[in-house]
Structures are given as C-alpha cells and as structure tokens.
C-alpha cells in the first residue's frame, strides 16, 4: 500500500471521528445553555477550548452568544476546524484513498458530505440544532457501519481504525484537560447537585451518561467519572479502550509487514505505563499533569505512526 494512501485512510477516519466529537461537544454545550443560562458562556468557552479553536473564535467575536458559537463551530469559513471544513477534509482524504476503499465506504462518506453540506448551507437555527447534530451522528454511524461491514481486514482497514482511536483518545483527553478542575477532590467535597450537572455534561460530551449510570447507578463521584473516562476497559471512548485497540491495530500491521515497529512499542509503553496506574494514584500525582502527559504521548504516537509507515517522504 502506498504511504500516501495509508496517510489518507488514517486522516480520513481522524477527521470523521472529529466531526462526530464536535457534534457531541456542541450538544453538551447547547444543553447547558438551555438549562442554565447563567453558566452558558463558561460552557461555550470550554467547548471552544476542547475543540482547540478558542483563539480563532476570540479573533472574530467578543462574547459567547449561543448562535455565534454554534455557527462558528458548525460552518464558519474562518474556522478551519468547523464541522463542515473537517468533513470536507475527510471527503478529500477519502477521494485520495479512493482505490483503497470499498464502494460502500466511499459512497457513505461522499453522501455524508453532501447531506451535511445541504443541511448546513444556511446558519442552523437553534430550534433545528438537535436535528442537525443528530444528522451528523447518524452520518458518522453510516460511514462506520460501511467500514465494519464491507472492508477487507487488511492493512488499509487497520490504518482507518488507528486514525479513529488516536483521534478519539485525543478528544476524550481534551475534555478532561478542559474540565479537570470539576473533578478535583476540593470541588467534589461540595457534592452539590450543581456539580452533578457538570459531571453529567462531561459524560454527555462522550455519550456516556447513560452507560455510566447503568454501571454505577446513582453513585456519582468525581473519581468514578474520571476512572470511567480514563481507565474503563469497556467504555468505547475511554483512553484505555482506545489504546487497547491501537495496540491491536499496530500488532496486526507489524505481523502483516513482518517487522517490529517503533510505534507498536510506543503504544505498548503507553498502555503499560500511563494507562495502568490506578485512579487513586492518578489523582494523587495530579490529574491535570497526568492528562497533559497523556495528550503529549498520544501526539508522539501519531507522529511515530506517520514515520514508521512512510506517510510522507523523508529527506535522505
């Protein structure tokens, strides 16, 4: 497989994952803005932070009015990370890797792009937002379904999966990075219903509010929420889960190509070091530092994958 094709598959699924995560963030932010208008600005500001576009937003707007934030996140041309811009990147990557995709995966991606482009041709009104966000999630599900249902389990498939999980780990970690203070013991001690709502928002940003309750009942604590998002082995957006998958995919590639890659080792190190500490130890040594370390390690892994599989030409 061409290095460029591997790169396009990896990035195609990173972009698709990012689109889906953006929809979740916006959904969580929107909910707060509806139910607790006093803290809406803070909430939108942290959504913009988690999405990494707060600086670009501040250049354009002075306040965090819901309509402005929503338009910026969904479709503003000044935002290179808007849902539409990222969706366009995903489609361009799919077009570049067209020969490595099944017709079903390509068509699902192309149709998603067409559908979302039509749905967001004009600013999305607040009353239409839930529907639009639902559409984004539905389109992502279609592409994922086509991928799982029709792709040969070869190297191409594994590059697609790697992209999804690297992006997803990054996304979950970013939410924790922005909201870590809500999970600190000092805040948890207060134990008011206000904090419960905040925690629920975190869970909602990763579509885990229901599964969390299923597993924990009403027993909600900061530590339990953090544990769930970082270490839970069954929660599909937890850091541990993502890294278990990343290790599998890299193992497959190593086996397929008959060699040991540095990225395979690195993923192993991240699993064994960062992700095998108990949650008590993580809190003890500082949740924020822990998350920062993880984000840096995840970036290092992405760069190593790029190098190991010749995504780009290297001089020399």
């Amino acid at each position, binding site marked *: 497989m061409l290095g460029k094709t591997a790169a396009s598959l990896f990035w195609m699924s990173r972009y698709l994952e990012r689109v889906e995560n953006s929809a979740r963030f916006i959904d969580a932010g929107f909910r707060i803005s509806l139910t607790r208008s006093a803290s809406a600005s803070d909430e939108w500001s942290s959504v913009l932070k988690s999405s990494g576009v707060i600086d670009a937003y501040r250049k354009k707007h002075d306040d965090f009015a819901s309509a402005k934030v929503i338009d910026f996140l969904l479709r503003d041309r000044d935002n290179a990370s808007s849902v539409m811009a990222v969706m366009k990147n995903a489609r361009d990557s799919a*077009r570049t890797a*067209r*020969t490595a995709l099944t017709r079903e995966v390509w068509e699902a991606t192309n149709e998603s792009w067409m559908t979302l482009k039509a749905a967001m041709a004009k600013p999305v009104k607040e009353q239409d937002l839930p529907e639009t966000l639902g559409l984004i999630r539905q389109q992502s599900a279609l592409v994922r379904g086509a991928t799982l249902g029709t792709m040969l389990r070869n190297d191409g498939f594994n590059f697609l999966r790697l992209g999804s999980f690297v992006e997803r780990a990054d996304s979950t970690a970013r939410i924790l990075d922005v909201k870590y203070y809500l999970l600190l013991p000092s805040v948890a001690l207060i134990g008011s219903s206000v904090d419960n709502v905040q925690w629920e928002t975190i869970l909602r940003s990763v579509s885990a509010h229901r599964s969390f309750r299923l597993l924990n009942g009403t027993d909600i604590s900061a530590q339990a929420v953090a544990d769930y998002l970082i270490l839970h082995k069954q929660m599909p957006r937890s850091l541990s889960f993502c890294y278990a998958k990343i290790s599998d995919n890299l193992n497959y590639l190593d086996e397929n190509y008959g060699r040991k890659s540095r990225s395979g080792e690195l993923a192993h190190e991240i699993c064994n070091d960062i992700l095998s500490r108990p949650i008590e130890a993580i809190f003890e040594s500082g949740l924020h530092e822990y998350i920062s370390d993880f984000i840096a390690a995840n970036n290092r892994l992405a760069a190593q994958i790029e190098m190991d599989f*010749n995504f780009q030409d290297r001089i020399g």
Partner: protein
Amino acid sequence: MLGNGEHVRPAYQDYKDWLDGEDVKRLHRKSAEAEAFFRKTGITFNVYGQDEADERLIPFDVVPRVLSAREWRKLSKGIEQRVRAINAFLYDIYHRQEILRAGRVPIELIANNAAFLPQMIGVNPPGGIYTHIIGTDIVRTGDEEFYVLEDNARTPSGVSYMLENRETMLQMFPELFAKIKVQEVSNYPGQLRRSLAACAPQKCEGKPVVAVLTPGIHNSAYFEHSFLADQMGVELVEGHDLKIVDGRVAMRTTEGYTAIDVLYRRIDDDYLDPLNFEPHSMLGVPGIFDVYRSGGITIANAPGTGISDDKALYSYMPDIVEFYTGEKPLLENVPTWRCSEKDELAYVLEHLEELVVKEVHGSGGYGMLVGPAASKKEVAAFRAKLIDNASNYIAQPTLALSTVPIFTKKGLSPRHVDLRPFVLVSPDGIRITPGGLTRVAMTKGSLVVNSSQGGGTKDTWVLEE
C-alpha cells in the same frame, strides 16, 4: 434514430418498440435516479476557478445511441488503420523521418512544433508502442459517412463514462438488455491492464507492476484516474509518491520503495519531468525521462505522441495513412483550411460565418469559433485574433452532424452527437471496445459537445451480430 426521411434506422427498431411501450413518467423518474446515482458515486468533474460549484455532473441522457454490428465493423476497421498509421508515423518521425524526406509532410510543421519532442529522437519505446491508448473522435454525417474529427493520441479521457454509463443503464433498465443484445464494454479495464503489462520495459523482473499517475484530487478528470486504477487493481500515484531509486522509478509504500514497470500517466508531457521538460512542474518525477530512456520504465502513452494528433498536422492525416499502410484511408478526414497558408487564410476570412475555426493547440472546445452560431460581434472579434496570429488556427466546414434523440422535459428531441471509441494498442494487436463515449450537445442546434462547455453523454450500444 431516424435516418433520411422518417423511417427508423434498423439498429434502433427494437429500442423504439420498447420505448413506445414505456410510460413517460417512469422515464422522467429514471432520469432523476440516474443523476442521484452519479452524484452519490462521485462521478463528477472539477471546474477550475469556481468555489461553490466546484464539482459538476456531466449530464447523462437515458436514451442510448445505437450502432449496428455492420456500422461498427466499418468504423472499427477505419480506426484500426488510422491507429496503425499513427504509431508508424511516430516511430518514423522520431527516427529516420522518411515522411519528411519524401516531402509528404512539410518539415517546418514538425521542426517548429511544440508538440514535437526532440528528446524522443532515437528512443525506442518498450514493445515498440507509442500510443497505448487512443480515443478517436468520430462524427457521422450520413448513413455511411463517418469523419474523424480528432485523433486524441495523448491522454484521452472519458472511458470511465463509457463504463459507468453502461453500468447505470444496466441498473435502470435491466429488461432492455434482456431484450436487445448489446456488445459488452465491461472488460475494458482488464484489457487495459493486460495491454499495459504487455509493454513492460527491459528492466522489469517478474510480473509487471503497473500504476496510474494522476495530478491529484483537484484535477478535472480525477474521478476517471481513480476509477481506472481501482478497476485495474493497481496503485494510483502522484508525483510526490515517486522517486528514482537505483535507476528505477519507485513508489513510496508503507514498507519502503517499490519499482514501477509501467506507468499509465494522466499528466501532460510538459509536466512529466522537471529536469527534462517544464522545470517548474510539481506534478511529475525529476529524472523519470532518463529512466525511460535507459529502459527502466514504460510510460504510456509515450512522451511526444502529441505530434501525431496536433491540429496543424490533421490535414495531412490522409497522406500519413497512405504513406504507412499503403492503403487508401477508410475514414474521411474533415476538409481543413490551414490558416498558415495565405490563400487558405483569405478563403477563411471571407467565409468566417460558415466555418468552425479552431486553435491548433487548443482542446476542450475553448478558444474556437463556430461561425453559424456566433454573433456578428463575436465573428468580428475572432477575425482580429485570426489575422493577428493566423498560423495558430485551422478552419473546417460545419458538418451536417447526425442527431440522436435525447429525453427532455417535453419528450424526445434531436441533438447533435459525436463518438469517441477507445482503442488499446499492445504488441499483440489493436483492440477497440465496441461502443465508446457518445457526447451530446445538450442545447438544441448546438454543435459543441465538450463537457467543459455543458455537453452531456449517452450510453453507446453496438448490437451483437
């Protein structure tokens, strides 16, 4: 569909019988379905310099264009003769240049021609083939009259539309194909791969590695490039995927560099190699031409084939065919006035309103004048351009092009068409896929069929014997 008078051409009889029994509403629905299908599949072409409408569909018409087996035999014989002559001409023009010595083609026409590549002099392309892929543009003016409009011996496009149009028709009207026996086109990609592999270079070891070279996703024909690579089961590469490794052109894979034996390139000669041709090109591979000359890679079509389909040479094609095959041309050439010649220019200037005037190096229907369709103002503006740079132009009469019905909102309506059959040349022989791409001028009375100018396409049927 109708011949002279109002009788139905025999080839169309079965189709017309079917059509007469069809509900018009159903056809409208099918028409809309076809459009949705093309969009979904991404069978689009990019238009340069337009942001929002950057990907367009080529209009597809649901009424097929039908040729009888007999008509096709006549046509394909003529095309084969012409393609044989073109390859012989290319070999000659880059070797001993007998045709120039014999005075059949003026030497200035070659010497001063940008399409002539001096770097190709004395080079022997692997398998002795210059033009592996040709798309001959044909128009019909009467029952037995076919003219060759252009030879397209560089990188002809449109074959993906031939294949997808048929696929679409099969999906929409399966019952039609059960009733009427139409010759297959679907084996084209397999034949293309085989015929490319049959021209592997000297340094090829084992099974030839074939790849398609594209300028990238923003190129207007990108869909076709990826389609062909996909259908042949070969890699689709861009210039930045390639570099020269140990005297071979190699592609960067996830496991290192792999040598390519045959490169079906869909970029022009100029952009192929910044070291040997256009120095600013970012699309090509520095040094690929040197590898080519040393027998390290086959480039299809060979560099320099553009001299054979150059419009300045077009009027000499009958001589070229005769010179190399020793036979009279089977297909007509459109009478052509060479504006580089004083007397002919005078005639053209006098008859501008009746003629089609084309740029010698133009393509895609840009920069041409269709006299009968142009306004007085347009003719006057063109006249000035023509006088200014006469040798840049040729002129042809407007032919009484045949029409084929298209399905419009108001029912069937005649439109002018041309036909581009696709020809594969390999050391084992010449193959022409029965059918080709029928391009249709969607505007009533228009003679311009180019997709860049709003032309559409149709499925093209060659009936079984």
